């Protein structure tokens, strides 16, 4: 998982104590679309771990496709200009609390970055080969980290 922020526990404590929350429409996009993408990656990786076989590069391209969805969601909800064009249900003036921005952008960006870099290595034309079990586990750990973060945020912000 991504390295924690230096003051991460403090930030989560503030979220709880100051009752910081996330606009429901943004949360739905974040939780559902990112959630769907990580679920797809998770299932794909889990299948190959279950059968104890390396993940073929063509399947690894699917991982990249799902990771790109996460990237679009994150860039979309944090960039005012893109927000409405990508997600018409959002208004430009919907703001996210800086603490939420700090936590979400740090963790999801870094974990997705790792998923993309690992998958890219095995799908590039220079090195087109199956992802070995040990690296499937690394991708899986990153998807679990994103899922855990979303659950932790859900609990801290009181979004149920």
């Amino acid at each position: 998982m991504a390295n924690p922020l230096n003051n991460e526990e403090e930030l989560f404590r503030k979220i709880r104590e100051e009752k910081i929350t996330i606009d429901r429409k943004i949360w739905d996009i974040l939780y559902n679309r990112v959630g769907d993408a990580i679920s797809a990656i998770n299932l794909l990786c889990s299948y190959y771990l279950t059968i104890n076989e390396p993940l073929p590069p063509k399947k690894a391209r699917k991982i990249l496709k799902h990771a790109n969805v996460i990237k679009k969601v994150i860039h979309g909800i944090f960039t005012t200009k893109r927000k409405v064009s990508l997600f018409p249900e959002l208004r430009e003036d919907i703001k996210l609390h800086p603490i939420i921005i700090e936590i979400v952008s740090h963790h999801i960006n870094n974990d997705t970055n790792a998923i993309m870099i690992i998958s890219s290595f095995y799908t590039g034309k220079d090195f087109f080969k199956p992802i070995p079990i040990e690296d499937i586990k690394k991708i899986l750990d990153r998807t679990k980290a994103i899922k855990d973060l979303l659950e932790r945020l859900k609990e801290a912000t009181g979004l149920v």
Partner: protein
Amino acid sequence: MIDNPKKLLIIDDEFDIVFYARKIYEKKGFLTFGADNGLTAVEIFKREKPDITLIDIHMPFSPIDGIEVLRRIKEIDRNAICIMFSRVTEKQKIEESKKLGADGYLLKPVDIEDLDRIIYEFVK
């Protein structure tokens, strides 16, 4: 082995990023170096004089962040080519890095195709 391969230094406090980015660009014929903290990165820069340096701005596990790494590298060689990895929320830091002479930036999560595009633009 390519004669006189271009040198690439990758700086990120996430081990996986440095490790796999190095593997990718080694396959593409680069001589790569990696650092997971800013101080080591500056030392490697002094020693190896890389052609391109990729710097993550936000490195909570490093004693100095990517902006400070950029500042120190540009003090050593103001013509050093430095590309910053940034989060979409770090507009102020992107501006700061431009003022310090960064040659480009990419938003995280980084797409290898985008990274290729920006790297090959400078190694042409």
